[in-house]
């Protein structure tokens, strides 16, 4: 385990010269060497470059709010160093000619990007099993999945290989792995963080966000990565508030919404129910008032998601043609169409092909209105549900995932079963609102597995959402738990 495994502790230790950044980075790299052969959180690690940057920090030549802190970046975020593979064979050797805005901002803040983490290929999946480079394992129990698609980022952090990590969330891909690995994971409001240089999956749903051990660390990272970017026309020009300011100030008269549709959802593990019920009691003890709210279109959320996401994905993935970059078939071809079709069939994994097929079908002639356009209208209704609910409460509280970490292979045979794991997370992407997952307990022995609590808030209220999360964290011990392995 890292001696200083949170951002706050690492910064404090580096500033007070208790430890140098070089030492901290060496610890992190040693942890990767020791544990990553079993966990497989990283697709690539850059020791020389990381140590060189750490030396610059120690010499005072690199400064900033994250100076010297080792972090990990999901491998669908472009960097000019190394590769950006999206855990796909089709991009296995891709070296980006430009860096994502988020990567640039992290480096400008002094962070040390140790490496790029594994994901479900092109961020399609909820278990990190659909990676061309093999599945990532959950550090709490290596027979289980870390969640996904940002499973590598979650596992790297949970195993003490870095102090924080960055993921992307299209239908729960930050919050669900955070929940399954005992971490804090935040999906910001759509438009809060630039997507420039994030390899596009579903462009109207994707958002980059932090994974961290604590709410304060998540706020520190959001301070660095949030803000308008002229290179992303969907990023909003709103001024970025200081997410750390007033973080420890509780919300007076806090009202938390409990959605009846979420309580009726089937398939919630009883231990998850118990832990979330206890979290509600904790909030009540802190003075929060519970409000019954209704999100009547909840049952259509996953259906809308599994139309919108594959449609946008099939369109975004049209660029992988074996011509401009990425894998090209070595087979003889008659013409360019065959070059496209063979290169794509060889380069994309099965789940990606399945989603391209659904998207292509739903967008094909005669079906557009019935599927994609209708799903976008259902989005409006889901967003209205939230807008109405938020007139009665500051945030809605629910589980992040209906189940704790499941076994590797358990759900991979039936794609629809895997999709249903996203029931509490997809609506935030559909409605473009922020959501945060917090550790709220563990399943029973022998191998305790983390359980996550989710808070959903109105668009652009991350500041308030983080304060509400901090109230819970300050009152509970869960954020101090570490897996035995690490």
């Amino acid at each position, binding site marked *: 385990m890292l001696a200083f495994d949170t951002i706050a502790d690492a910064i404090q230790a580096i500033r007070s010269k208790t430890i140098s950044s070089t030492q901290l980075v060496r610890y992190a790299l040693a942890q990767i060497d020791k544990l990553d052969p079993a966990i497989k959180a990283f697709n690539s690690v850059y020791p020389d470059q990381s140590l060189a940057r750490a030396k610059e920090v120690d010499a005072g030549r690199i400064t900033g709010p994250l100076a010297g802190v080792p972090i990990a970046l999901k491998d669908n975020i472009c960097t000019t160093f190394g590769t950006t593979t999206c855990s796909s064979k089709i991009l296995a*050797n891709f070296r980006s*000619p430009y860096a994502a805005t988020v990567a640039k901002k992290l480096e400008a803040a002094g962070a040390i990007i140790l490496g790029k983490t594994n994901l479900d290929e092109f961020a399609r999946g909820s278990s990190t099993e659909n990676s061309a480079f093999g599945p990532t394992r959950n550090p709490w129990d290596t027979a289980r999945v870390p969640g996904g698609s940002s499973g590598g980022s979650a596992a790297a952090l949970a195993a003490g290989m870095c102090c924080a990590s960055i993921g992307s969330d299209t239908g729960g891909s930050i919050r669900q792995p955070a929940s399954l690995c005992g971490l804090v994971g935040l999906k910001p409001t*759509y*438009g809060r963080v630039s997507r420039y240089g994030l390899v596009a999956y579903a462009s109207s749903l994707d958002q980059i966000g932090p994974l961290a051990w604590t709410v304060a660390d998540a706020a520190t990272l959001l301070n660095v990565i949030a803000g308008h970017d*002229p290179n992303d*026309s*969907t990023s*909003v020009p709103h001024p970025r508030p200081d997410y750390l300011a007033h973080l420890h100030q509780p919300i007076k008269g806090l009202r938390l919404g409990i959605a009846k549709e979420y309580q009726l959802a089937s398939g919630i593990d009883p231990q998850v129910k118990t832990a979330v019920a206890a979290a509600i009691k904790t909030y009540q003890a802190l003075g929060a008032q519970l409000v019954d709210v209704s999100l009547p*279109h909840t049952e*259509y959320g996953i*259906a*809308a998601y*599994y139309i919108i996401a594959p449609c946008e994905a*099939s369109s975004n993935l*049209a660029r992988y*043609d074996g*011509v*401009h*970059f*990425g*894998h*090209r078939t070595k087979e003889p*071809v*008659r*013409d*360019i*169409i065959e*070059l*496209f*079709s*063979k290169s*794509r*069939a060889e380069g*994309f994994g099965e789940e990606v*092909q*399945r989603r*391209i*097929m*659904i998207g*292509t*079908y739903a967008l*094909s002639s*005669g*079906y557009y209105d019935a*599927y994609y*356009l*209708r*799903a*976008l*209208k*259902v*989005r*409006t*209704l889901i*967003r209205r549900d939230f807008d109405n609910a938020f007139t009665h409460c500051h945030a809605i509280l629910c589980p992040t995932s209906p189940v704790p970490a499941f076994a590797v292979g358990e759900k991979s045979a039936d794609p*629809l079963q895997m*999709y249903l794991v996203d029931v509490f997370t997809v609506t935030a992407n559909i409605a473009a*609102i922020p959501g945060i997952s917090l550790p709220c307990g563990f399943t029973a022995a022998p191998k305790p597995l983390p359980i996550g609590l989710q808070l959903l808030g109105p*668009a*652009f209220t991350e500041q308030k959402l983080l304060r509400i999360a901090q109230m819970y964290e300050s009152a509970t011990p869960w954020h101090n738990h570490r897996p035995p392995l690490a």
Partner: protein
Amino acid sequence: MPDPRISLEQVRHVAKLARLELTDDQIRKFTPQLESILQYVAKIAEVDVTGVEPMAHALPIHNVFREDIPGPSLPLDEVLKNAPETDGPFFKVPKVIGADEDSAR
């Protein structure tokens, strides 16, 4: 809502549209999987969307314009460095025109 039942022939057609050269085994595997997913998502047909506008952003942002000011582009060698095959400043592909009549698909 279209009929969520789907035939092998339709799946073969969609694979062609998606430029994916799938084997017969893959087509047979995907067909029931796609059908079950389409049956599930078909439930959005139950929702009354009369008069509802489609949504794609947290804010009602539609077009974002900027001044048309030329700026530096990426260097050509950087842009071409990931290409599987190049010829000078060009991407190289098999013959597109006149290879056979199928090319016009």
